[in-house]
């Protein structure tokens, strides 16, 4: 039986999957409105009008959930010089060569970048989303402002979806990562190999 280390508490994982699920709903309903080619997603929510009605609520809930998640992880995601170094070498990592990567703590620079992109884009989505949320905020904001808001909302959504794709792929690409979120534990080898500093730290305590 490989020895495992606990990476995420149960509450964090539930929180993560809550946000992930809502991202799927908000994302799909958002994409339905994003481009005609994906409008058929609106059938998942009971048609165009329901998509337009539900999407803001999904988004709101997602942001609500994300806030808790963010509060738990933001400390480990502060950007350090080490992360810039990691980024510079990430090009090699992509080609599968892990040796030259600097030792990484609980989160490597890629993961940190993803978290921060999530945070910023969700913030923008929240703010601009309110500005053209029909019908509750119909007459509140001038049309000129709403036009800017709609554009920013689309850009932020694009950034969010892109970073989610990267986030999901990274998890699949680095075998053994998914279980961190599904069961909360990782194998010692995984920890030693990918997050040596975090591994030492965990062993130190153990």
């Amino acid at each position, binding site marked *: 039986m*490989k020895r495992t280390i606990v990476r995420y508490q149960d509450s964090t994982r539930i929180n993560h999957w809550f946000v992930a699920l809502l991202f799927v709903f908000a994302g799909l309903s958002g994409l*339905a*409105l*994003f*481009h*005609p*080619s*994906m*409008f058929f997603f*609106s059938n998942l929510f009971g*048609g*165009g*009008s329901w*998509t*337009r009605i539900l999407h803001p609520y999904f988004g709101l809930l997602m942001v609500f959930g994300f806030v808790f998640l963010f509060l738990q992880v933001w400390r480990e995601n502060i950007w350090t010089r080490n992360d810039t170094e990691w980024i510079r070498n990430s090009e090699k990592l*992509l*080609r*599968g060569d*892990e*040796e030259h990567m600097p030792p990484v703590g609980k989160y490597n620079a890629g993961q940190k970048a993803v978290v921060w992109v999530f945070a910023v884009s969700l913030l923008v989505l929240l703010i601009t989303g309110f500005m*053209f949320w*029909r*019908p509750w905020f*119909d007459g509140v904001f001038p*049309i*000129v402002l*709403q*036009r*800017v808001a*709609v*554009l920013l909302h*689309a850009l932020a959504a*694009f950034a969010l*979806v*892109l970073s989610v*794709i*990267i986030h*999901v*792929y990274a998890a*699949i*690409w*680095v*075998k*053994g990562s998914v279980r961190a979120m599904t069961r909360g534990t990782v*194998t*010692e*080898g*995984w920890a*030693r*190999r*990918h997050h*040596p500093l975090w*591994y030492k730290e965990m062993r130190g305590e153990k």
Partner: protein
Amino acid sequence: MSSLQSLDIAARSATTTPTPQAREHVVEVAKLIDVSSCIGCKACQVACMEWNDLRDEVGHNAGTYDNPRDLTPQSWTVMRYSEVVMPSNEGERLEWLIRKDGCMHCADPGCLKACPAPGAIVKYENGIVDFISEHCIGCGYCVKGCPFDVPRISKKDDKAYKCSLCADRVSVGLEPACVKTCPTGAIRFGSKEDMHEFAAERVVDLKERGYANAGVYDPQGVGGTHVMYVLQHADKPQIYNNLPADPTISPMVSLWKGVTKPLAVAAMIGAALAGFFHYMKVGPIEDEDDDGPGERRATEEETR
């Protein structure tokens, strides 16, 4: 399959494939509003209300003749009254400029460009831009798209509404209700070409009566409109209760609904595919206990 064979559709909202356009040799219609002959009697408002079975609520008088105060889902056209003092050959002259506000039926409609719901907004071959309420999802994007701030979303059913240029009457060969009822013939209807000719005559007559800057308002910023004005002061449209001087679809909207979106979709799909092929090519980073490169090095150190 459009059930409207007689009036083909030139453009349809949120539709990336072209609409059936074999029959494009269709007369483009236009409604000409000659503000210099308009007595502001609001017969067009009543005819529009009555034909389309709309009844707004009885509002209040807020110090002007403008009733209702603004376009609403139940008022698809309203008269805008402005009292301006303009220079004339006999010194200052008070003028009461009354403009019939409503959808301009643009050649390049901002509402149609902004609308995310397929088939909710259509532009017919004869130039009429119409809202197909059954497809409308009530998102309000058309309000952002329109350079003239015309569409209104109803609180009752979350559907967008605006003047339809009586597409139902025009499709069976009748003129719109407001055109027929206009007592002084200030509203005319016909082919856009004829309307331009008639407008030119009116401009000549107005110039003779001392309105040097009389002209036709058919803004090219939106590709020309199928509702045109003859204005006594065409050089200053904004005095007609801020009729935009050079209306265009806002750059925000064209950016938002222009080429960026397809690229963004492509980028997203591209990212997913890139991930997939990357996985194929580079293969996953395995999570075996001992034979991983990084893994080997780490184990050697502790086990020693």
